[in-house]
C-alpha cells in the first residue's frame, strides 16, 4: 500500500491539452486577445522602419512606401489593424474591473469608466490626425 503523504497525489489526472483554448469560444476570444500583442510588436517594428526611411532621405522613404504597397504587407497591416482595434476595445472594457472606482460609498458602474476612455481614444486620434494632416 502507498505510504501516507499530506497531499497524496492520488486521483486520476488528465494533462491539459495544448489545444485547450479551442474548447470554448470564450477561451478562443481570450487567446486572440493575447495574440494581438504580436501585431502591436509588428507595428513598432514597422514604425522603426519608417523612422529609418525618413532619416535616410527621400529615396529611402519612397522605397519604403513601395514596401508598404506590397499586397502581402497590406494584408498584414489590415489584419494588424483589426487585432489592434480588438485590443483597444477589450482593454477599455476590462480596465474598470481593475480600478473599482467608488464614489459616494457606491461602486461606479463600469460603463462610466470605460466611456471616457473611448472618448479619449477619439480625441487623441483626431488630434494626431490633425497634427499630421494639416501640412
Amino acid at each position, binding site marked *: 500500500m502507498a505510504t501516507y503523504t499530506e497531499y497524496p497525489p492520488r486521483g486520476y489526472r488528465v494533462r491539459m491539452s495544448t489545444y*485547450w483554448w479551442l474548447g470554448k469560444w470564450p*477561451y478562443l476570444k481570450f487567446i486572440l486577445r493575447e495574440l494581438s500583442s504580436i501585431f502591436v510588436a509588428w507595428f513598432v517594428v514597422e514604425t522603426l522602419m519608417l523612422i529609418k526611411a525618413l532619416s535616410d532621405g527621400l529615396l529611402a522613404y519612397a522605397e519604403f512606401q513601395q514596401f508598404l504597397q506590397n499586397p502581402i504587407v497590406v494584408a498584414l497591416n489590415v489584419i494588424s489593424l483589426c487585432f489592434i482595434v480588438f485590443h483597444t476595445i477589450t482593454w477599455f472594457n476590462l480596465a474598470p474591473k481593475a480600478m473599482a472606482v467608488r464614489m459616494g460609498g*457606491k461602486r461606479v458602474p463600469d460603463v462610466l469608466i470605460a466611456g471616457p476612455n473611448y472618448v479619449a481614444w477619439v480625441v487623441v486620434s483626431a488630434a494626431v490626425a490633425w497634427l499630421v494632416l494639416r501640412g
Partner: protein
Amino acid sequence: MADKIALEVTRFSPERDKEPRLATYEVPLRKEWVVLDALNYVKDKVDGSLSFRWSCRMGVCGSCGMMVNGEPKLTCATFLTDYAPGPVRVEPLKNFPVMRDLIVEISDFLAKLTKVKPWIIRKDEKPLSEGEYLQTPEQLDTYKQFSMCINCLLCYAACPVYGLDPLFSGPAALALAQRYNMDSRDQGTDERMDILSQHDGIWGCTFVGECTEVCPKHVDPAGAIQQYKLTATKEWMKSMLMPWKGK
C-alpha cells in the same frame, strides 16, 4: 416533451479501472428536476455505487459542482429540461484529480485557501469591554461581493491557468484574500501581501475572466484579482520609492 432523458455519467473506480469511462442511464425527465435529482434517481433506483457530493440542494453549500455538458455548474441549480432531448453529460469538476466517479480531490484548493489567511488579522486586539469592531454599510459594501463565495470551485474548473500551472492560487482563494484585505476591521494586508506577491500567487492570472462568468454567486473573482494586482503594485512602488517606511 419526452418523459425520459439519457444521462451520461463518468464512472471511475480506482481499484478496478485504469481510467474513467462514461456510463449511460435513462432517467425520468421531470419539469422541476435538476441534474442532482437525476443523479440521486440513478443512485436510488439503478446503481447504488454511483458516488457524488451534494448537501443543501439549494445553491449555498458549494458541494455539488460538476461539469454538465462541458460547463462547470452546480448540479442542484441546473435543470434537466434545459438539456432536453439530451443526452446530458455529467463529469467531475475539471482541473482536479478524480478520486472516484464524480468526486474530485480538492486538498490543493484547501491548502491554497489556508495560505492566504482568510480570516480577520489584527495587529492589536480591542479588549472585550470596548465592544465590537464597528463597520458602516459603505465599508461593508466594499467587500461584500467577495464574501459571497461558497467555495464551490466552479471558478477553478473554468480557469485555464489553474489547469496549466499547479502553483497558481486560483480565483476563489484570491477573491477571499481580497475580501479580507478590504474588510475595514482587518489589519492583515501586509501579511497577506508577502504570500500573495510571490510570483505564483496572483501574477499567473492573465485575466481570462471565465471564473467570473461561471460563478453562481456573482463574486467576480477576476475583478478581485485585478484590483489586488493594482494594490500590490502600489505597495511595491511605495517600497521601492520610499524604502525607509517601515511596516
